[in-house]
């Protein structure tokens, strides 16, 4: 395997101050509220959060697939290889989706259309985005299937999804995701959990695809285990904002936001038996009645007055790790002086 420094290149996706709001009968829900992150070529970024944290809406916003109404992208920039795709006309955006930004769904059983054969589904994006037809298209489809190691692709591409095993279906979904050689691949996790062995196969496939194409991957997940296994960098989301972001090892070894720390401590580990898990009190806040200060304050072990008064600034805690927590304020000040 390549080391991460060989694999990772220039910034391909630069998300700046992204804001996506939903207008509901309870008021304006700020599902994504000022999110900043960058993704480099060949890098895997994990966006971790619980339900309602805004991780999936972030992904949908990048694809510009937020259902509207009620959702609106109200601010920010999404620079894909330098171009702000939020400014594109709808028709132009269609050319981006599926070609420069790909998507893979984790559940191979539901991601394929049962009434079309494999050739049709793998070839769809090539036909639309690259105007391929006839033999050229067929050769390309065979090539894609060979890349994801489907045996006898010339024959298997005439099959329908039900004729393939689960593992092969997963590989077909992977082939569709990278068929137009995208710069960014978004992998959104299903809400129901897959079996461990199926999930392991899927993660291995994604790694292979990345090594093959150098695509930058954004992993949307609630599971720190996936982050530990797959990601180079992590952004932790809570109540619509990124509360902490940094290198995966730094985040695990030295979490700088109490939410990240508590979340890592509250997950049981297979490697050791713990006597007692830390459990975070309370529950995630309702997005239509967020407090004035830090959204995590009422569940946090380190809350003080300032947390209730104002939402924390984002502090740089070193080596590219940033944290939106007032606890880090003193450290950064002392570091400067």
């Amino acid at each position: 395997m390549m080391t991460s420094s060989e694999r990772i290149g220039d910034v391909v996706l630069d998300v700046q101050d992204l804001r996506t709001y939903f207008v509901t009968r309870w008021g304006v829900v700020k599902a994504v509220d000022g999110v900043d992150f960058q993704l480099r070529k060949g890098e895997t970024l994990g966006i971790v959060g619980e339900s309602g944290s805004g991780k999936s809406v972030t992904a949908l916003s990048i694809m510009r697939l937020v259902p509207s109404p009620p959702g609106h992208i109200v601010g920010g920039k999404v620079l894909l290889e330098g171009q702000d795709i939020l400014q594109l006309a709808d028709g132009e955006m269609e050319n981006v989706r599926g070609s420069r930004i790909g998507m893979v769904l984790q559940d191979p059983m539901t991601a394929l259309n049962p009434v079309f054969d494999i050739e049709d589904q793998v070839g769809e994006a090539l036909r639309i985005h690259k105007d391929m037809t006839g033999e050229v298209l067929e050769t390309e489809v065979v090539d894609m299937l060979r890349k994801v190691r489907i045996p006898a692709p010339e024959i298997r591409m005439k099959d329908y999804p039900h004729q393939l095993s689960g593992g092969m279906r997963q590989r077909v979904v992977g082939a569709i995701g990278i068929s137009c050689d995208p710069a960014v691949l978004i992998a959104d996790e299903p809400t129901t959990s897959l079996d461990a062995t199926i999930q392991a196969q899927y993660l291995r496939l994604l790694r292979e695809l990345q090594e093959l194409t150098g695509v930058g991957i954004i992993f949307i997940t609630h599971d720190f285990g996936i982050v530990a296994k797959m990601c180079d960098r992590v952004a932790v989301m809570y109540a619509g904002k990124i509360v902490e972001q940094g290198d995966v090892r730094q985040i695990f070894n030295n979490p700088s936001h109490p939410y990240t720390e508590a979340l890592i401590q509250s997950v049981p580990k297979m490697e050791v038996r713990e006597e007692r898990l830390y459990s975070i009190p309370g529950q995630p806040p309702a997005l239509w009645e967020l407090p004035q200060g830090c959204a995590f304050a009422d569940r946090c072990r380190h809350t003080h007055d300032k947390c209730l008064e104002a939402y924390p600034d984002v502090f740089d805690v070193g080596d590219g790790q940033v944290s939106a927590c007032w606890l880090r304020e003193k450290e950064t000040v002392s570091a400067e002086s």
Partner: protein
Amino acid sequence: MTTENATNGSSESLLAVRGLKKHFQVGSGLFGRNKLFLKAVDGVDFEIKEGETYGLVGESGCGKTTTAKMILRLEEPTEGTFEFEGNDAETVGKSKDLTRNYKSNVQAVFQDPWASLNPRMRVGSIVGEPLEVSTVLTKTDIADKVGDLLEEVGLQRAQSNLFPHEFSGGQRQRIGVARALALNPKLIVLDEPVSALDVSIRAQIMNLLEDLQDEHGLTYLLIAHHLATVRYMCDKVGVMYLGRIVEEAPTEELFDNPLHPYTRALMSAALPSHPDIEREEIILTGEVPSPLDPPPGCHFHPRCPSRFEPCEGTVPVETQPVPDHRVVCHLY
């Protein structure tokens, strides 16, 4: 703590299951020829000691939920016996009193707290329903007891007037736990009790279940696919594959010294808790075969990395290479 109970070897077995089978008929040919049977559970034996947590793990389709359903008497076993507090299933089935006693002593907490609570009932009625059905308590007594139960699981008495949709996922699961506790059961079947919940809520529910176990001396049967959860909660674990238990051992022994190739593959596929943990990746070839037509010999042999001649033809027998550690594999 549950670990103390585990070391107490003299504790009695509360539930013993022997040769449990459930075959579903899924099709019949002309005049009933060529009947097809789906062997969801195909000969399962285990024992749960009082005060312990027994875990059944395996992937979807391995039969762990069907086993739980039979223990809850929601499915009739095709074959096999139970023994609950020394009374076997035959005796229990013949006596109305024993049946009622069994049913109030064996309760369940289900996976999805959105689906397992009736949306049209108030929380008070949901938690109080078992008491209405199975006891002779008056309405005021029931309301009182429901209040106590809600407090016990970390909710407030006044919340008994609310409907399930007014609660978050974690709180709903607490309601499910309160309902399971209502009749002072001895055994609670926990079918994936935390997998539908948010990560930050899972530890709350797991710790609540542990605390209740300590306070009431409860016995749990935990059905789960997440190995870390199993390690945290269980005293003993059985690993199921295609309707059979392929390995069983006390939790620490199983995780420190997994013997069956399938158990090892499952553990290697589990996600690490830290980026520096690199596990040997055991790649299983192929898919879980259909339980309609399981492979001959050892069910696992077509996917097994360590298979050799006898695996294909002969069904392996159970051995105990280490005391109290059962494994069904030709390697041992």
